[in-house]
């Protein structure tokens, strides 16, 4: 990613889509993404370099993040969500798993978070919807752990 192309193309496409939608359709599209969050779960036989499953106080239920890094160093994410996880968090799960697929862990880590409000819209960003940033934080978190381990391995 360069400065003129701040977001990965897949994510940029999603951002542009949401920004073009009137509020009602934006909500419908978020719900549609939330409906698809289950498709981001790990599939049988898939192997991961890192798995991070936990219940944080920022989120209503357990969230699992699974990282796969292919031979070209590109990251692929899978996620599991507990039943109490809120709809916006589900939507962001589907959006980010798709939008960040194929970027390197370093690129994901450097991604600015300001796009989240462009997707969700200001009307839905308010008290008790702060968890919209939660999924991005968790995805960045697993990328950071991966990169730290890589660096430690290089030093050793």
């Amino acid at each position: 990613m360069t400065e003129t192309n701040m977001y990965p193309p897949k994510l940029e496409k999603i951002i542009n889509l949401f920004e073009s939608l009137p509020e009602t359709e934006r909500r419908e599209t978020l719900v549609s993404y939330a409906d698809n969050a289950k498709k981001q779960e790990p599939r049988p036989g898939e192997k991961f370099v890192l798995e991070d499953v936990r219940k944080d106080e920022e989120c209503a239920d357990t969230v699992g993040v699974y990282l796969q890094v292919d031979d070209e160093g590109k990251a692929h994410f899978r996620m599991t969500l507990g039943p109490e996880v809120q709809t916006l968090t589900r939507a962001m799960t589907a959006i980010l798993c798709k939008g960040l697929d194929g970027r390197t862990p370093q690129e994901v880590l450097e991604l600015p978070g300001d796009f989240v409000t462009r997707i969700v819209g200001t009307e839905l960003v308010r008290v008790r919807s702060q968890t919209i940033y939660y999924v991005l934080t968790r995805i960045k978190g697993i990328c950071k752990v991966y990169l730290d381990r890589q660096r430690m391995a290089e030093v050793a």
Partner: protein
Amino acid sequence: MATSPTQYAHPEALVDADWLEQHLNDDGLRIIESNEDILLYDTGHIPGAVHIDWRSDLQDQVIRDYIAPDKFAELCSRNGITPETTCVFYGDKANWWACYALWAFRLFGHDKVKILNGGRDKWKAEGRPMTREVPKYPQTNYPVPQKRLDQEIRAFANEALAQSEAGKPLIDVRSPGEFKGEITHMAEYPQEGVLRGGHIPGAKSVPWKTATNEDSTFKPANELAKIYLEGCDLKSGTDTVVYCRIGERSSHTWFVLTYLLGLENVRNYDGSWTEWGNKVGAPIEKSA
């Protein structure tokens, strides 16, 4: 005491899922979903239910206060509600927000109100009908309420202070950790931190969930009487003030005390801990 320990004081304030499923299309009934999860209604709701959002619909968007009476009249009118409409509230989190919305409706004098016992979770768990179809009702002309019942069912900080100083009942419905001042926000809501932890001096700790069963329904009357009437020595006619962080969990307890136990003069201090814990000079107790 206005209640017998074997029966709710106002059993008519609750409906069960069987009853509601048989009355989905009744004229004069409006089902209202109110949730914490802002998009939950959009993912599916009880057929015919309208959505009322605790923040965008019921609160003033600039000043920390509820909407003005004319805005309430507009809200009801666009949802096809008249003063004669019976509003059945339900929602997520064991009806936290449903009770909050019900309390707000009462604030404007709308008294035909009920709660779906067990709320959204129980309805869904029982496999009852859900739809994504958003209903449209003919616009009504709800008259602008003459006033808000701020004096009757709502308490402000100065009144909570007077309650504390007079040694009158104050019920803190937050979690034990919040009550003791060990944490300055509710678990899972770190963005709602305050500058000071603890509770209003003299308040008793009865977490809101004490009033509910595992399936989100309310506990039977005799158990509620044991918790609040015996355990907290609450009496009808004595002023009682309930509070939490922003007034939503305490709306649940307000409903229990007012409708299920029949106590009079129960008020909800909706400024709650986000006001008290930040208020310069407000006295705070930290002991258990």
